[in-house]
């Protein structure tokens, strides 16, 4: 009756980086040979690893990076819609991180400074291809509901492995010393 359950099929995972540096994704690859084991347990949906552009129904979504612009919001919402469990993956997703260091000035000031030409003219591009900046950079949990937080800049390979294996084996993930780090 209570026999150890077999996972019926591989867990489907989506990953994305919003306003981040892909450092958290690099760290995911840093689990080294355990990647092979991971590959037996999960399959990747939308992810820089697969280059799949849109997310289908998934068990887990890992979101790296803060929410800086309109496109970030749309991608984040897509993952939230499709993932049973959404994880804020790394410091920027949790606090806004490095991109949020612009939050102490007005977005107007940022744009006018960046798009000022040598002649002093300000020309902010009006290309619909370019995502519009939000007034601030937000942690993802201020835009959508988030189920788990995996801190670190980036979280170490060991931390990610501990988190994923907890999740995959049905234990509430627990990150504590020495794996818990904000830097």
């Amino acid at each position: 009756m209570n026999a150890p359950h077999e996972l019926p099929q591989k867990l489907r995972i989506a990953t994305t980086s919003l306003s981040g540096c892909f450092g958290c994704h690099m760290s995911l690859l840093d689990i080294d040979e355990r990647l092979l084991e991971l590959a037996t347990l999960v399959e990747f949906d939308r992810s820089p690893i697969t280059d799949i552009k849109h997310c289908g129904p998934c068990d887990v979504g890992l979101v790296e990076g803060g929410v800086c612009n309109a496109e970030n919001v749309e991608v984040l919402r897509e993952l939230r819609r499709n993932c049973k469990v959404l994880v804020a993956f790394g410091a920027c997703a949790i606090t806004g991180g490095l991109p949020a260091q612009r939050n102490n000035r007005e977005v107007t000031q940022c744009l006018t400074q960046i798009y000022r030409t040598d002649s002093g003219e300000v020309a902010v591009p009006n290309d619909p291809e370019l995502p519009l900046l939000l007034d601030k950079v937000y942690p993802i949990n201020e835009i959508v509901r988030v189920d788990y937080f995996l801190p670190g800049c980036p979280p170490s390979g060991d931390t990610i492995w501990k988190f994923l294996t907890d999740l995959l084996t049905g234990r509430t993930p627990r990150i504590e010393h020495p794996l818990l780090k904000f830097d």
Partner: protein
Amino acid sequence: MSDASELHDLIEQVLQRYQRRPDRLVQILHDIQDGLGYLSDATIALLAERLQISYAQVRSTRDFYAFFYSEDRGQYRILFSDNVTDRMAGNQALFQQMLDYFNLQPGKVSRDGLVSVDLTSCTGMCDQGPAILVNEMAITRMTPQRVNQVCALVSAGVPLAQWPSGFFAVDDNIRRADCLLGASPEPGESIRAAIARGREGMLAEMKHSNLRGRGGAGFTTAIKWEACRNAAGEQRYIVCNGDEGEPGTFKDRVLLQSYAGRVFEGMVIAAYTVGAQLGLLYLRAEYRYLRPRLEAFLAGMRAQNLLGKDIVGVSGFDFDIEIHLGAGAYICGEETALIESLEGKAGKPRVRPPFPVACGYLNQPTVVNNVETLCKATEIAIHGGAWYEAIGTKQSTGTKVLSVSGDCARPGIYEYAFGVRISQVLEDCGARNAIAVQVSGASGACLSERELGRRIAFEDVPTAGSFMIFDKQRDMFEVARNFAHFFKHESCGFCTPCRGGTALISSMMDKIAEGRGTQYEMNELLRLQAVMKTSSHCGLGQTAGNAIADTVQKFRPAYERRLAQTDFVPAFDLDAALAKARHLSGRDDAHAHLGEEV
């Protein structure tokens, strides 16, 4: 004469008035601001130099109090009292009317430097609101007509002293008088009675009376007096806490306005009993209009030898009273914060123990009593503890003065023996259809219809005197939100739970008000309240979430009807967060917008 030398002269005059005492800094800042309109960084730098204290210290005090301004707020500084009772009386429309008249943003001074208009915490005129303060002078019963009149006077630059005196009339509205408000003893009668009993005798009567503090906490007054008398110290002080800032409370204003003799004689009796030579009345800035008549009253008492040297002929019984003005800080109602303020500092509560009775004003043994408590001491002096103890209930002896406001026919002052039922008070003041009563102010308890049979008493519903009534047309969510904003504004910032918690609760209430709240926020409100209640440094933080917790439990639908259908909504409008970039890029295409996620 140059501006610089005028400034030097003004500062010099003020400093002489206060014997260059740094512990008089709050009073000094008041007087300088009266002369200059505001306290610039340059002014306080000069002041710090003259007082030989640090610039940062002066700045710390200036920046703490709501009524001290670092920038010019205009020749006329108008503040609308923003208690929930003022709101119920329509202050928001009047506020907007005045802003529109002067074409002003709240808190911003007009371009000609004439006037600024802003909101302020409850000014204690709840029975005759909406109320405003003009340069700290109270004007009650604001109407659209009166707003126009005020605007016209301001525009014409008429000095405040020449405004119609009727504007400044503040009524007592005593609706029910009992032992205290109904009696009119001769001046000095209670002091003579206390002296006839002797110091020990008077203390014994106080003990017998079981008088408990009327400021809300209900500490036994005789124990305070005895502890102060017995504490080691060079000087003892009697402080009268007239910082009646609890929203909805105005009974001390009436006592100080029409029963000042009782208050001051109570201080004299306390001084006699504990052996103090100096008394300090801490008068909240909102009641500044009372100061001249209180000073005159003190002068009269001195003339009658009820103050000064050898009071009523008792050799060696020397005692006098000074009035200190607060500067807009609710927290100064907390006794140790009040003492800090009396010492010229930011009003932040001290660590207790030591308690003021052992180490209070200037680190000397100090009794801090509420205005009403001191009045009660005069009754006990005259009639004795046994007489007093027979009134009220066993644990709550004597009478209690209530400040009744809100939805009732006869708002005002009601004095009852302790133990009176809430329903009785409602009946007497003509409140029909009450759905809720907020007892003891924003920090007190919100009682629903089911609880109107409860009694006003320390053992049942304790109160500092505020009694605000809400009938069925009122929205209890908005009542709680008003209190949440109040506490965020008044948190002193000393401790983490209160500083952080009041800010978070306030923003969550705003989120719910905007239709962005969910059950999640409802739970968060209660969780925050629990942390604040158990971890905060003083009563402000401990009680700041009470009204939220009470209304979430008792008036839950008032919250729920504002909640979003989904289980999560961001705290802000995402599309609006793109507005600046949209404007700069000149875009308005589909990708330049974000809808709400459903």
